């Protein structure tokens, strides 16, 4: 089975934040929660690079390992999802995650955290596919529709690639070969 992956080509990313907006708008993500964000280094100086980052859907994910109620699980295709009916909002996954992917809505009472929300790879959640509950809690299920995630679909420079790991690594390798820099993809060797 295909292993779903994200890959952000930092030589192409132009820091337009289109992926962030597409994700928030398309999935109905509340204010204050960013399933995806763009980080820029050396802003305005030589060597400026931008990276669009979200949940990396790790194999052997620390969030799954740390979750005390086993609310986070991994699908067969590698997509890591959270069951919001079980999640208690303890925040341990946020402490364990090296990418800062888990997000928590702030409640009204003393700012109590709600349940964890994170990138679903636009694959919905454990609720029945295309149900109203799934749309409300997790957003769109584009994987079930046979589409790539919103962020990658709208990326104007096609910096953000998403899909079968073998396919996107092939695309990226062709790009790198054409560029002739011989560079490796960001975190490709370590993150997956």
């Amino acid at each position, binding site marked *: 089975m295909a292993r779903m992956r994200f890959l952000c080509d930092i*030589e192409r990313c132009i820091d337009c934040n289109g992926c962030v907006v597409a994700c928030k708008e398309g999935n109905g993500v509340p204010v204050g929660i960013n399933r995806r964000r763009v980080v820029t280094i050396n802003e305005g100086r030589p060597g400026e*690079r931008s990276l669009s980052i979200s949940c990396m859907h790790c194999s052997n994910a620390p969030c799954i*390992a740390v979750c*005390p109620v086993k609310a986070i699980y991994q699908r067969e295709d590698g997509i890591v999802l959270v069951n919001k009916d079980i999640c*208690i909002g303890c925040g341990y996954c946020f402490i364990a995650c090296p990418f800062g992917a888990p997000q928590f809505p702030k409640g009204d009472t*003393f700012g109590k955290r709600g349940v964890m929300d994170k990138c679903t790879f636009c694959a919905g959640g454990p609720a029945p596919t295309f149900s109203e509950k799934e749309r409300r809690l997790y957003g769109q299920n584009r994987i079930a529709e046979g589409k790539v995630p919103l962020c990658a679909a709208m990326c104007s420079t096609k910096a953000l690639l998403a899909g079968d790991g073998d396919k996107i690594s092939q695309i990226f390798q062709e790009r790198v070969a054409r560029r002739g820099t011989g560079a490796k993809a*960001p975190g490709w060797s370590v993150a997956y």
Partner: protein
Amino acid sequence: MKFNLTSNHLRVLLYTVFLTAAGASALAANYIILNFGNISTTQAFKAFPFLVSPKWEAYANDFIPFVHAIPGMVWPILVFIPLIFLIHFFAIGPKNFSEDGERILFYGAFTRFFHWINAILFSLIVITGLMIVFSKALGGGGLIQNARLIHLSCAYAFIVTVIPLFLVWLKDMIPMPHDVKWFLILGGYLSKKATTVPAGKFNAGQKIWFWLATVGGAVMFYTGFYLSDITSRPQSELFSLLKIHIILGLFILALFITHLYMSLFAVKGSLKSMISGFKGKEEVKCLHSKMKI
């Protein structure tokens, strides 16, 4: 032949200067563009702070085992301390003092009022804290979400209502030399005889409970406050805060159970004295021998 500097010559000269300047600028621009951030992608990527560390798999290696060890640290306290008290209750039995005769006002109305407010809040904090620890057994979800809400709300209330009690009892709670003696005989709870116990208004056990509940409670509030707002601190610091919160919580839980046993079972009439405020003179003379009446 005489060289005349005509306007044509000037034009050629100007063109030459202009073209040279243009060429030089183009070369310079080209150089700048080629060298603008001329570092490899890998190198550039590694510059992204903490987002993708090369050792990301080791990132939470100490945190993950700790989280899963928490229930294993808590349940022995919940099981073995009550077990010890159960054995004590049947082997040695509670202390009985006659309630006749002279009675001494031990707790004023103000003290009792704040004691019971804090008792309710503290019990709720302990119970909901235990629910969070054993969330997996309870199935997680909305139940634990509500438990966390109560845990948080009661903590905010407790940290305010504990202050009057802290100030009222502070002067009687300062550690004294005779507290060591109290510890050596474990407060006389190991003998069936009504021996005279070295203690002022409060004995050493009560003092430990007082300091753990007030100052310890403040530390729990401080750590819990930052744990409740997880984006406020770096992740490694949150781990240290969680460690303090859990380990101090274990001690507080142990003393909480002890306080419950002592007040409800070990000393007869103890609960009544916190409701009415009066203790029998015989009890005071025996258990609080150094108290000035």
